C-alpha cells in the first residue's frame, strides 16, 4: 500500500477544502477503499476521514414525510431501525442480503453508492481496464465475464455496479444530496451512476471535490411497504454479490396494481430502473403472465457482453418472481435468509 497523510476534519467546509486536492480520497467505513488500496488499485496521497463530521449519521423524517438518511449512517443501522425497516422493507432486505454482519457494521450509505465494481480485471492492476486506467482496453471482454453487464454496457467497459442497497433505492425514486466546492445540489439516484460509453473511468456524476451528503426517500415511497420484496440470485446463499437481483414494489387497490416500482441489480454499471415495465403493470391485475410480460419489457434491450447471455433469462425470471412475492405481501418478519429464493421459513404477510 502507498503511504498517505491522514486528515480528520471536524466540519464539512474543512472536509471539502481537503478534498479539493485531486490526490485526496474520502474515507467512510473503509471496507472498499482499504481493500482497493491493498490491491494497488487505489493509491491516494491523502485520506480525508469523514466519519467525525457532525450530523451525517442520522435517519430523519422531514415534515413532508421525506425520509433523509445521512451519508455516514452504517448499513447495519437502517434495517435495525424499526420505523425505517417497516416503511421500506425491500431496502432493509437488500441491505441484509449484502456483505456480512461485520462489513455492514462498518460500511456507510455514502460509501455504498461510491463503491467500485468487483470486475476481476478492474481489481488487478496488471490487467487492461479502461475503468481503472483509461485507454488500456478491457480484458473482461475476452476474459471471465459471466457475471458482467447485459444492459447499458459499451465496448469500452462491461462492468456492473455491485450494490444491493442501490437497487430498491433506484426503484423508489431516491434522491442523492451532494456537497461540493460550489455548494449543494441533488440528483435522482437512478442517474447518479454513469453508463460507460467511451469514458469508462467516469463512474458517477460526482465532480472532483464533491461528496455524497445524504439520501432522501420521497414522500409516497412508504406507500409500497405492504407489497415489496428484494430477491437476489448468487453463487452461494449468503455473503456473495448478486449475479442478478430485482427490487419489486406494488401499490394495490381492490386487487388492481395502481403503481409499480421496479429495478434490477447486477445487470449494468448502475442500478437499472425498469420504467417501461412499471408503466405496463399500472392498472393490471397481478398474475403470472402479467409479471412475465413486465419482465420481458424490462429486458427488451438486454444483450450479452460475453459468456453471459444466460443472465438475460435469469434477470427476467428473478424480476417476475420478485413481483409475485411482492404481490403476495411483504413478510411480517424479515426472512431468515434475506433476498433468497431458497428461504422456506414462515412468510406470513404483514397485512400492512
Amino acid at each position: 500500500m502507498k503511504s498517505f497523510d491522514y486528515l480528520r476534519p471536524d466540519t464539512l467546509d474543512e472536509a471539502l477544502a481537503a478534498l479539493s486536492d485531486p490526490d485526496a480520497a474520502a474515507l467512510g467505513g473503509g471496507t472498499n477503499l482499504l481493500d482497493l488500496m491493498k490491491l494497488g488499485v487505489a493509491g491516494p496521497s491523502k485520506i480525508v476521514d469523514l466519519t467525525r463530521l457532525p450530523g451525517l449519521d442520522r435517519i430523519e423524517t422531514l415534515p413532508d414525510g421525506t425520509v433523509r438518511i445521512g451519508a455516514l449512517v452504517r448499513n447495519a443501522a437502517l434495517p435495525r431501525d424499526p420505523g425505517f425497516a417497516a416503511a421500506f422493507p425491500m431496502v432493509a432486505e437488500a441491505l441484509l442480503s449484502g456483505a456480512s454482519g461485520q462489513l455492514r457494521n462498518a460500511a456507510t450509505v455514502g460509501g455504498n453508492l461510491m463503491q467500485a465494481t468487483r470486475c476481476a480485471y478492474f481489481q488487478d492492476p496488471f490487467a487492461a481496464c479502461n475503468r481503472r486506467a483509461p485507454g488500456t482496453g478491457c480484458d473482461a471482454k475476452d476474459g471471465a465475464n459471466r457475471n458482467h453487464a447485459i444492459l447499458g454496457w459499451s465496448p469500452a467497459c462491461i462492468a456492473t455496479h455491485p450494490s444491493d442497497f442501490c437497487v430498491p433505492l433506484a426503484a423508489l425514486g431516491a434522491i442523492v444530496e451532494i456537497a461540493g466546492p460550489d455548494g449543494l445540489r441533488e440528483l435522482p439516484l437512478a442517474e447518479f451512476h454513469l453508463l460507460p460509453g467511451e469514458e469508462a473511468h467516469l463512474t458517477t456524476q460526482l465532480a472532483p471535490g464533491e461528496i455524497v451528503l445524504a439520501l432522501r426517500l420521497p414522500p409516497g415511497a412508504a406507500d409500497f411497504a405492504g407489497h415489496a420484496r428484494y430477491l437476489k440470485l448468487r453463487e452461494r446463499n449468503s455473503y456473495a454479490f448478486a449475479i442478478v437481483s430485482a427490487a419489486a414494489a406494488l401499490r394495490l387497490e381492490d386487487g388492481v396494481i395502481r403503481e409499480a416500482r421496479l429495478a434490477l441489480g447486477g445487470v449494468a454499471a448502475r442500478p437499472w430502473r425498469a420504467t417501461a415495465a412499471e408503466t405496463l403493470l399500472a392498472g393490471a391485475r397481478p398474475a403470472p403472465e402479467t409479471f412475465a410480460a413486465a419482465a420481458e419489457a424490462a429486458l427488451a434491450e438486454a444483450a450479452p457482453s460475453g459468456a453471459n447471455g444466460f443472465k438475460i433469462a435469469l434477470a427476467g425470471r428473478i424480476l417476475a418472481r420478485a413481483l409475485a412475492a411482492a404481490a403476495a405481501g411483504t413478510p411480517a418478519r424479515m426472512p431468515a435468509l434475506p433476498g433468497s429464493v431458497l428461504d422456506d421459513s414462515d412468510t406470513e404477510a404483514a397485512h400492512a
Partner: protein
Amino acid sequence: MTFSITLTVNGTPHHLALDDMRVTLLDLLRDRLGLTGTKKGCDRGQCGACTVLVNGQRLNACLALAVQQDGAEIVTIEGLAPADGLHPVQAAFLEHDAFQCGYCTPGQIMSAAGLIAEGEDGADIERIREGMSGNICRCGAYRGISLAVAEAARKAKTEAGA
C-alpha cells in the same frame, strides 16, 4: 506524518503514536500490542478471522485503519472472558466441539458474541447461520459452530429474562 491516538483494548487504555498511517487495527493489535489471538486470514475482509468488537460492534480489524479507531473501546479474544472463567460463547464452543484446526476460532467467537449482542440471531439455526456467514471455517466445523452459537444465544436470553 505522525498521529497520536488513544485506544482502550480489553479495558486497558493505550496512548499510541503512529508514524505510519497505513497500520490497520489488526496489525496494531498483533504487532504492537502483542495480542496475537486476533488472526490474519485473508486480510481483505472476506474470512472473518480478524473479527473484534469495536465499541461493542463486530468489525473486520483488517479493513479498519488504526488511526480511524482513535477513542474506541476494543475487545479482542484475549479480553472476552471474565477473570474467573469462560465467556458463554467460549464454553459453548468447547461443549459442541465447534472447531478443528482452531485458526478461525477467535474470529468465530468474537463474531458470535457480536451477533448475540446485536439481538438479531433469532431462535432458529438458519438465522444464526446467516448471521455468521462472514466467518469462514476451512475445516468445515459449521455444524458445531451453529449449535454452539445457538446455545450461547439461548443462555444469554434466559439470563436477560431472569
